[in-house]
């Protein structure tokens, strides 16, 4: 590998803001970081790029003082720093936005913003001062966020906003963003990018982690590629192609980011009429999905798109409307009944709703198939048969490492998603509901997930994809619904299915209300 983008040593004189040399970090049995070097300059956005489990988050944790490194030197603003604690890091202006949020769900947004940095006098909180400051910050950021709400009442997108706001409270010299857009939609992403530009202009250094090529293209000044905990190369973003980056990251060539999917729409598999949910997040929705095609659902944060598919599967209480699966009415949906009817759901939050992390992969993959004779007879498990069933599924999905007896918690994000997908292969299913199928997984894994969807469609299944990542739904779906405020705002197909049109329907209603 020898690209023209190879970076020369940083110009002498301009000492980097952050300079790491030979950082190593070992967890029991895992070398998460192996002599990694990294430097970040003031006013620069430095992208960390690597597969799931490459060590990006670990590096960020070291930089923000959460883990002490086993070895290596750490310089910030030219000064050697030892024994960095989270408090110290924040004090010197290192502000991380973590991938696993550092929010306390039972506290309000405001309480979370100030956590660890409360304004207080002699141990007594000064609520008024904090409220004012929180309001001002949120307004300045332009986030649609109510500082008085409890974090566990918020959608993941709003939690992400709260996490970003938390990082920007107080003086910031180095902002670290670990996959900040993983659950943001276009509009919030736009706001965030504006903000990033502003911070760069103010001379703030940024470290940015993302699996989305588009963002790297749009934002990066330099890119550092990590693989298996090792520093592979640091490149100038302007002089490197996507293909080169992906190849550096994975060690193999990946040509396309989205596979071409041959849609062959057949009979209607899912038919929803006048669906309204108890919490009002979905109102009077009509919608259908056909076998042999991918039906996409896009929409802004909180528009109810997740709730729609969750209701079909039986996770949200329905108050009105009918659902038909393959033509037969389906009353009172519940997960077990849905699976029996051939409907599967893949949740967006794989840790909270998908996997039992401390249990073996085998058990996680066969969790939805425990009623099948291949796995159990008369309530007794058939472990040999189960093992071969799951083993075959995981082989097909190219699980790495292929050992199905390891706990699911030991897997990287992409491989966790594969375990979830494996469930689809353990039983006969005809309808697949994907909620944010590629959140947090690397480019290579994404492609494998898309390939998997392609195989499903080819086999004649109905696939419904809910996604906040617009390029993804646009590229995958044959027909695309756009939701807005719990209702279907548009149905796009064929040549109408463009980014402009989707964005237009996102904002159509605002324009209407503004005009009124």
């Amino acid at each position: 590998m020898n690209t023209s983008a190879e970076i020369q040593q940083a110009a002498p004189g301009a000492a980097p803001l952050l300079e790491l040399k030979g950082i190593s970090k070992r967890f029991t049995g895992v070398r998460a970081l192996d002599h990694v070097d990294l430097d970040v300059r003031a006013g620069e956005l430095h992208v960390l790029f690597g597969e799931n489990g490459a060590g990006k988050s670990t590096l960020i944790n070291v930089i923000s003082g959460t883990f002490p490194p086993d070895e290596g030197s750490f310089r910030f603003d030219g000064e050697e720093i030892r024994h960095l604690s989270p408090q110290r890091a924040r004090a010197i202006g290192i502000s991380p936005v973590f991938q696993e949020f550092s929010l306390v769900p039972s506290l309000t947004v405001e309480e979370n913003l100030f956590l660890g940095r409360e304004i207080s006098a002699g141990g007594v909180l000064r609520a008024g001062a904090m409220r004012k400051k929180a309001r001002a910050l949120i307004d300045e950021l332009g986030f649609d966020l109510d500082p008085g709400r409890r974090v566990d009442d918020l959608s993941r997108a709003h939690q992400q906003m709260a996490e970003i706001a938390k990082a920007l409270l107080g003086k910031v010299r180095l902002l670290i963003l670990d996959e900040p857009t993983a659950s943001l939609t276009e509009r919030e992403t736009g706001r965030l990018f504006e903000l990033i530009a502003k911070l760069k202009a103010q001379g703030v250094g940024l470290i940015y982690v993302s699996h989305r090529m588009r963002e790297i293209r749009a934002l990066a000044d330099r890119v550092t590629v990590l693989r298996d905990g090792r520093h592979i190369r640091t490149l100038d973003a302007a002089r490197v192609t996507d293909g080169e980056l992906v190849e550096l990251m994975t060690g193999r060539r990946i040509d396309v980011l989205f596979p071409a999917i041959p849609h062959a729409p057949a009979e209607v598999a899912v038919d929803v009429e006048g669906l309204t949910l108890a919490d009002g997040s979905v109102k009077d929705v009509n919608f259908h999905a056909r076998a042999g095609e991918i039906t996409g659902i896009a929409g802004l944060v909180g528009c109810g798109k997740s709730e729609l598919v969750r209701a079909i599967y039986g996770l949200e209480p329905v108050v009105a409307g009918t659902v038909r699966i393959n033509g037969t009415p389906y009353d009172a949906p519940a997960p077990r009944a849905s699976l029996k009817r051939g409907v599967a759901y893949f949740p967006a939050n794989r840790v909270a709703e998908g996997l039992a992390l401390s249990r073996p992969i085998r058990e996680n993959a066969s969790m939805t198939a425990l009623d099948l004779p291949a796995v159990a007879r008369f309530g007794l498990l058939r472990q040999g048969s189960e093992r071969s069933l799951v083993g075959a599924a995981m082989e097909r999905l190219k699980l790495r490492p292929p050992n199905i007896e390891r706990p699911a918690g030991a897997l990287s994000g992409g491989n966790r998603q594969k375990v979830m997908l494996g469930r689809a292969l353990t039983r006969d299913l005809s309808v697949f509901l994907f909620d944010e199928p590629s959140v947090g997984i690397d480019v290579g894994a994404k492609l494998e997930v898309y390939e998997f969807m392609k195989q499903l469609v080819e086999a004649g299944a109905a696939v419904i994809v809910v996604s906040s990542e617009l390029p993804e739904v646009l590229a995958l779906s044959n027909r695309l619904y756009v939701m807005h405020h719990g209702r279907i705002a548009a149905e796009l197909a064929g040549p109408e299915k463009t980014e402009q049109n989707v964005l237009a329907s996102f904002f159509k209603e605002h324009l209407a209300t503004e005009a009124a």
Partner: protein
Amino acid sequence: MNAHASSTNAASLAARPGITASGRSLLGRIGFLPALLILVVVGMSAVDPQFYGPINILNILRNASFLTIVACGQALVIIAGGFDLSVGAVVALASVVTAKTMGMLAAAFPGNDALVIAGGVAAGLGSGAAVGLVNGLCVARLKVSGFVVTLGTMSATAGVALMITSGIPVYGMPQSFVREFGRAQFFGLPTAIYVALIVLLVMVFVQRRTLFGRYVYAIGGNADAAIVSGVGIRRHLVGTYVLSGVLAALAGILLTAQVGSGQASFGGDRMMLQSIAAAVIGGVSLRGGVGRVEIVAVSALFLTILGNALNLLHIDSRLQPVFLGVIMVAAVALDELGRRRKARV
């Protein structure tokens, strides 16, 4: 873009008129408990006029005071994600230590009651703090679950209390401690009620207005988040257990003053279970991060009144636990169902 942002802001807030938020603020914070309490009070007053007699009310308030004091500390520990099974044993230990110390000081400094009382109270509170410290350090340093640590210290503490006394009540406290502290009344109310009120007010203040209170919520809500946000969680964890120990000791001292002797039979499993019950029925989540001491106090009052009511209604004392159990479960179940329904509307 800015215009868009602000209009979306207004639009989305209008479209979702804070469904869960309002459910939380009203029911989540207060719950059905006060309503249930009023129901019991009104019902009992209608059935039996003895119930609202001044003496009965004083008895109820005083007995609720002991429970409230212990339950406040327990609630704090539970909010921080822990569990304190040792409170009952601490009540007994503090009682015994206080009485023994006073007895010894009274022998050494006869007549100097102020010194004797101060010394005894300090020793009692100190013994509670010591047990709390052991609990806290084990939980925070050895990272063992609070349930197991305090199960261990419960046994050990009870053992020490019994070793000190051999089970025989400890006498020899100055009469003024019993007369002017234990059985005294100010403006018609016994000392214990004032102490409980002060504890409650301080705890409400601590929970809402202090860094410590905030950190306790944060640690219980998500300890990892608290750590990465720069909250030193060990000290605060230790703090909750020490506070719980001290408050349990305080209740033990008040009981000692009221009864007039130090007893290793105070507290026990009963006080421990009751304090946890008061906290949990008062809306403190055993998963941590949630709960308000004022509601816990209401719940302590509820439990005390329930016991009193069953006695006034002349219910067979063997059957009383059956009523108590059913009402306890029903109260919490109603609360839970009500919350679920409200959150849906």
